[in-house]
């Protein structure tokens, strides 16, 4: 063992959460085969679409979501899953019924597991097992899934904003709300300095429990600070002292930021350019549980206020998270080995991005640090301009959380959001680079 190596004598306590789920799943016994993999454990999709959200209900039981769980938590999870055995068996029966119906109707679009699993569990809870020969329910469910509930909601939206009176009223509201947002008198660079120093703690090294508690305190202070609000307000002022260019960040097509429209009027897909109706449409498209949303008129009114708010986000924690994300984004460059980061979190993300770019290289999708075929040039250039897609996606996630009033007040959750966005943008980019090269295969 070398001198700089450390012998870890840590004896971990607890159990990997996924192994807890697997053991509980096996304890359910027969009847859930269609939701299981060949080795008898649950399919990853079963975990993702049924167990986590509907059985363990991670949103209200965060203690079940840590990678390693304590023995008493493991026991509770085990009981919950085994206790849901009857519903899970019914859900499995529903899945078989829906799959038969899918085959009968020759539906070949959409991933059957992805689309049907949550519905199956819902049916199991509300109706129990499928009655024999109940083709009608199955066919109605498939119609609902495939023809889309979202289309109906979007049709309602379109009808609503078809009325000129509605649009005029919303436009008046927008004018007012927009003018209400003003940066405070003291919102100059002198205030931004200390704020960015605080962000340094939030985005700093992740080690140790005391450090983590300190980080949480600073994050709470950052959210309470008016700086993120003021920075967002400054983005609308000519010659403001904003530390970044919102055009270069890809958040807006114009500087200063322009007042958004109620509908139409912009070809730009930049987050701060989007019209109120486009923003509501995105909400409807994303929502899994549309019934929990306010009705369309209220949704539109809310969105007018949100579109007028600094950074296009209503709550302070989302505004602060976006500002933290901007500070991270400007340091990310997947293909650049030389980049060094001011923040430990950005350095960590950058290390992953470099590894992921290496995977492309090792698979002959990229030459060392550049395109392997001229056809990829555009995508590779996009990869270099990483901040823009990163911030677009972060903004969209924050917008969703703003609508659903999901808090961003937990610093660890915010950090993992910032990491998760990097991961999904990187995956998206790499899929495109891969697709560019595999385009021809069918020919």
């Amino acid at each position, binding site marked *: 063992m070398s001198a700089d190596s450390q012998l870890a004598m840590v004896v971990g306590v607890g159990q990997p959460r996924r*192994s807890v789920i697997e053991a509980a799943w096996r304890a359910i016994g027969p009847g859930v085969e269609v939701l299981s993999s060949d080795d008898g454990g649950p399919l990853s999709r079963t975990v993702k679409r049924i167990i986590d959200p509907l059985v363990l209900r991670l949103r209200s039981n965060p203690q079940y979501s840590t990678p390693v769980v304590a023995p008493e938590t493991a026991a509770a999870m085990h009981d919950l899953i085994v206790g849901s055995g009857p519903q899970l068996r019914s859900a499995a029966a529903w899945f078989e019924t829906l799959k038969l119906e899918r085959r009968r109707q020759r539906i070949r679009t959409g991933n059957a597991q992805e689309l049907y699993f949550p519905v199956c569990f819902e049916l199991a809870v509300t109706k129990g097992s499928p009655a024999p020969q109940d083709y009608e329910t199955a066919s109605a469910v498939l119609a609902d899934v495939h023809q889309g509930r979202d289309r109906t909601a979007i049709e309602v939206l379109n009808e609503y904003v078809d009325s000129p009176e509605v649009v005029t009223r919303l436009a008046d509201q927008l004018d007012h709300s927009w003018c209400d947002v003003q940066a405070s008198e003291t919102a100059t660079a002198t205030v931004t300095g200390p704020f960015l120093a605080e962000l340094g703690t939030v985005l700093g090294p992740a080690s140790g429990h005391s450090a983590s508690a300190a980080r949480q305190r600073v994050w709470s202070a950052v959210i309470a600070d008016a700086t993120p609000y003021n920075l967002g307000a400054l983005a609308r002022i000519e010659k403001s002292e904003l530390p970044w260019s919102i055009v270069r960040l890809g958040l807006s097509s114009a500087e200063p930021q322009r007042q958004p429209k109620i509908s139409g009027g912009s070809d730009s897909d930049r987050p701060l350019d989007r019209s109120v109706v486009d923003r509501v449409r995105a909400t409807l498209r994303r929502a899994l549980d549309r019934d929990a949303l306010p009705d369309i008129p209220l949704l539109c009114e809310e969105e007018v206020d949100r579109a007028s708010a600094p950074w296009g986000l209503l709550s302070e924690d989302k505004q602060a998270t976006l500002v933290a994300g901007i500070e991270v984004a400007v340091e990310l460059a997947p293909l650049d080995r030389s980049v060094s980061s001011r923040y430990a979190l950005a350095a960590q993300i950058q290390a992953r991005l470099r590894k992921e770019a290496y995977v492309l290289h090792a698979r002959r999708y990229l030459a060392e640090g550049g395109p*392997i075929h001229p*056809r990829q040039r555009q995508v590779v250039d996009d990869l270099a301009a990483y901040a823009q897609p990163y911030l677009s996606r972060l903004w969209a996630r924050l917008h969703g959380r703003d609508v659903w009033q999901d808090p961003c007040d937990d610093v660890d959750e915010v950090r993992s959001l910032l990491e998760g966005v990097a991961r999904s943008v990187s995956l998206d980019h790499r899929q495109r680079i891969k697709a560019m090269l595999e385009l021809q295969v069918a020919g």
Partner: protein
Amino acid sequence: MRLVADSGLWSTGPVAEATPLVALLEVSGAVLSWTVDDPGDTATQITFTDLSSADWLWRVLGESGHVALASALGSAPTADEPRSIELAGVDIMPGSVDPLRRLAVGHWLRRWWPASRRDGIAGLDRALLDVEIALLTVGAQGYFFDDTLDSGVVELLAPHAPALIAHVRDGDPRILDLVRAGAGLADEVGIDDVGWPELHAALDDSSMTMSMPSGRRDDYALAAGAETGPSGKVRIARGAASMSWGAVPPGIFDAGEDTVDWSIEVVGTSVVAVVRAAVIGPDPATGVEVRLRSGAIGGSGVLDADGRATLPLVDGSQEPLTEPAAWDHDWSATLVIVGSQVSGETETRETRERVRRWARARLDRPANDAFLAEIVAAESEY
């Protein structure tokens, strides 16, 4: 087990060789790599990109190993200090990574298989290989809780319906089994691309079509014909160069050595380099860059579909090269580079030869875990 800090990430195990010898697989939260021709099963390297997403780790290290590793890295979360951590009693369980390694090799075969007419290494059937990889991916779905570069099966299957229909007509029972399994998977994951309804129909009555003549075409494009050039040309010098595999996409060029023939010719009043790279297909060489450098003289251009290019040459002062200067020049140290300009370490001829040796061995004695595409290639008596 020893964890080593490597460029800001924690890694286990020995460092695998550089490309093209590394086979790797991107699973949730980690990248697994192996040296492709190293049969030892201790040689697995795991690099963690996000330990909390690596919810499969207990399958490989056992539950106590997973927990020990998580708590060791939990208290030393940045891969800077210390440089390494020794985890006593934690090891990869024998055999646990075999299916992952096989999948990694499958992905390697898609991208690096050294098909070469010159070296007599038959190409692999892309459709069969992709279907088998898609099925293995589904079998390993426990490692893909989060989507990764390697978790998708739709893009592996979607383009291949026409080729698979041709295979169904051939009626080889091993292939039929594979295609049937692939079609079942396609049904489930929702593939509605060109040819898939026809493939399902063909499978439904494959017993009837089995005796129909094969419509399958050879996956190789015909190589460019014999040397013919514009008549009346004067050749000043000629030579052959090798291509760096890592600088070009797969599925275009013959993977042999000295496959890039070049000659310096006088055409009319100008001096040009005529380059011809041996192609093997199925993809065309169109647009791939080619550069020639010989002392101060140079030229560049792009290949056509058949791997040919004519490069105008310029001298050190960027003036068109004159015929007398071309005759005076010593062309013996001429470099011809096809593809992207690879910076850093370039692969060596020896490395490529090592890959070919391994590929030939796979064809001569197909291993137990050989892919059907390899077995079919081995039987093709190329």
